[in-house]
């Protein structure tokens, strides 16, 4: 009866995790039904009136909400594209670098921002991006008049996209660097004997070598196109740039928690959750099919 006591041990081990998973992930799912109510905290879930799909119909009618969907997808997609391009370029260049000490120093510098919070980085960026900040000084050298970056709706999304690339490109490159080190070195030696130059080796060996990783990252990132980066935008935006900078998560926070329209906030959140789940499902399917990826 060894087996039974073993099983008992396994159940005992997993119990705390299951309880917490239930309490903090599945109970909130139950609370999501207030998306179909006109929820009033004083009345609770039992007492609040049911309104069917009214909250969802409301979301589709309001122009704000549609704009917010658009902003979210635009920022998220541009982030993914530019971040991966920057990371791939950086990884390819770093791979060409022969001075090991320089290589290590560069890596130490570019990985650091990944580990700092957006609160800290936004505090820093607000100073850099001010009228008399570092970036305007630099643009001044090029003869460009000072820009108030954080107050310009046309500039703001790009500021979000590019500052995210700045924070993450180094760290994102680690995946590609790993893929590059896994390439068989004899391939390069043979190419050398055939008279290939540096660029040809990169084009015909390095890039095909990391192609599976690129496909994998592209597939998996599909699941994130409704996540445009709450922490970052929340700490950098202001009412002046809501028209282009407001995203689903910031909208839900303001409408749902600040204005206290719990049901509307929940409905937007639920819509996002359902669409995200479908996208993540598709992205895992893609990743499994084209890059042979399984999470477990």
């Amino acid at each position, binding site marked *: 009866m060894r087996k039974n006591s*073993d099983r008992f*041990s*396994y*159940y005992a*081990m*997993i119990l*705390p*995790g*299951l309880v*917490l*998973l239930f*309490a*903090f*992930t*599945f*109970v*909130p*799912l139950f*609370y*999501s039904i*207030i998306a179909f109510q006109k929820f009033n905290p004083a009345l609770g879930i039992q007492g609040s009136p049911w309104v069917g799909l009214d909250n969802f119909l409301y979301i589709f009618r309001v122009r704000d909400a549609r704009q917010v969907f658009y902003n979210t997808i635009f920022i998220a997609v541009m982030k993914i594209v530019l971040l991966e391009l920057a990371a791939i370029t*950086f990884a390819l260049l770093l791979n*060409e670098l022969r*001075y090991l000490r*320089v*290589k290590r*120093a560069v890596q130490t*510098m*570019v990985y*650091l921002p990944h*580990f*700092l*919070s957006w*609160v*800290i*980085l*936004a*505090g*820093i960026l*607000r*100073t850099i991006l001010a009228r*008399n900040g*570092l970036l305007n000084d630099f643009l001044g050298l090029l003869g460009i008049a000072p820009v108030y970056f954080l107050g310009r709706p046309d500039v703001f999304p790009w500021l979000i996209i590019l500052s995210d690339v700045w924070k993450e490109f180094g760290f994102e490159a*680690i995946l590609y660097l*790993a893929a590059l080190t896994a390439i068989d070195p004899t391939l390069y030696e043979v190419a050398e004997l055939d008279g290939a130059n540096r660029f040809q080796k990169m084009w015909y060996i390095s890039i095909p070598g990391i192609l599976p990783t690129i496909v994998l990252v592209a597939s998996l990132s599909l*699941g994130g196109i409704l996540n445009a980066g709450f*922490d970052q935008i929340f*700490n950098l935006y202001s009412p002046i740039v809501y028209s282009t900078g407001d995203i689903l998560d910031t909208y*839900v926070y303001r409408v749902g*928690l600040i204005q206290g329209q719990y049901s509307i*906030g*929940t409905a*937007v*959140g639920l819509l*996002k*959750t359902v669409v*995200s*789940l479908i996208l993540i499902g598709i992205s895992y399917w893609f990743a499994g099919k084209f890059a042979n990826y*399984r*999470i477990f």
Partner: protein
Amino acid sequence: MVYSKRLQDRIVDWLIAAFLLALGISTLLPLINTLAISLSERAAVSGGMVKLWPVGFNLTAYDYILKDVKFWRAFGISVLRVVLGGLLNFGLAILTAFPLSRSEKAFPGRTVFVWLFVFGMILNVGIVPWYLTIAGYGLIDSIWALVLPGAVPIWNVIILMNFFRNIPKELDEAARIDGANPWQLLWHIYLPTSLPALATITLFSIVGHWNSFFDGLILMNNPDNYPLQTYIQQLVIADRPILHGGQAQLMAKLSNATLNAAKLFVAMIPILMIYPFLQRYFVRGIMLGAVKE
């Protein structure tokens, strides 16, 4: 001909090295600018004169922070959440990953549980129901609100589960023959073998706990319970004056910009301190995530 090709090659090497070094340094320029501002005098800062080197070097801002009770209270709360949250993440990752790494035969229901956790990970219900749940448990203004909701680090569980499954079965069987039960197996075989993986995921949870501000913002009603990132967010980003107690007399000597820069920098120090360890482990950590079967 051969020589000139080599020279050309070397020039390209130098150019790449120079470009990447410049890129690396420019990545850090914003941080250097903040450090310089925190060490400069008021007039120079408000005049926008401070770039990469302090103007009118002084430590007034740091001196002020040292005596700032509210800052250190928030710092203490952050340390507490890192310790509590880190320990919970560590313990629960191991306890959850180990049974999930067993075969369906040894642990019936294993596959269902794995799917439950994966589903829980990708399911993100939105902050309103999340908030209502935690408020419903009466956790508002409690430190547990900052550590319990994320206590099971599901992504880490999956990484660790995959890692456990890659440990040679022979070790397992040998211990079995010696009569080890699952707890002994975990303690004597699996934990010692997976120390690097555990170090990696623990460092990542520490960084995550130190950096998070949003849960503190919505789950703490009393600003005295804010962790450091939330405190800084309110002070520097939202510019809430409620938090600046008795600062008026100091403003003559100190600009807000200087003080804020110094606070940002002090909040960065713990991350800078563990950064060398992080760097040693995170490459391996990322690879762990990619491990299959």
